[in-house]
């Protein structure tokens, strides 16, 4: 399989960030208290990475994939339990796109991809902790299973 260019990998990460932001809109309304606040902080982190990617891809003259009006969720979010499960899954999925970008990038771009992978993997663990799900960790965060 051909390795994607850095630009293609970052465009894929941007699409994943769009989907994550959409999902957190569905997740936040099903949570209360500290969990809701954590969802808002997570959403803000994904928005910040989205904005940085749009700027970066535009600056290099690359194609900036558009956001969509909606994204298919892997399962319905109807209550706190399903919201927490989706939050952990969103983080793992987004982490997977940044992990994929590691091979296509070097230097500062790779550092940025690794920082995102680490941050999202840790947040997935925190969501599992909030949900009371074990184990809290996966052996290879972001690796396709």
């Amino acid at each position: 399989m051909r390795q994607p260019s850095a630009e293609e990998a970052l465009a894929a990460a941007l699409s994943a960030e769009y989907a994550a932001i959409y999902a957190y809109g569905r997740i936040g309304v099903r949570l209360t208290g500290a969990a809701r606040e954590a969802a808002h902080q997570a959403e803000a982190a994904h928005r910040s990475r989205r904005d940085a990617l749009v700027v970066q891809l535009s600056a290099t003259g690359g194609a900036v994939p558009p956001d969509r009006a909606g994204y298919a969720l892997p399962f319905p979010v109807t209550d706190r339990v399903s919201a927490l499960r989706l939050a952990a899954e969103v983080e793992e999925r987004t982490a997977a796109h940044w992990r994929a970008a590691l091979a296509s990038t070097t230097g500062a771009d790779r550092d940025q991809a690794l920082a995102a992978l680490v941050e999202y993997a840790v947040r997935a663990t925190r969501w599992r902790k909030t949900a009371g799900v074990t184990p809290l960790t996966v052996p290879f965060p972001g690796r396709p299973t």
Partner: protein
Amino acid sequence: MVDEALGLAAAYQAQVAARPELADRLGPIAEAHTAHATELARVIGVALPTAVAAPAIDPVNTLAPLRALEKAAQQSATAACAAASAERAALLGSIAAARATHQEALK
């Protein structure tokens, strides 16, 4: 890197031996470190060492020493990822991320 991952696994096994009630919590993390060592040995093309000494920490009533080991190990995986070839960058990135999640799980 292979020895470091096996050393981490050994440190968790020593902690579980001293405090069996932590087996459910620490067992999956020990297994992750062994899986990292196995995968690293495979991509490097070396045999998995049969025995590696655990880092010298006393299994005590706090998980702080394990957290400190994970933090140092995360830093070494981060440096290795930055310097890695394209073929190995993703594996090393996952290992760095796993070590970060272990620190969170130990809190």
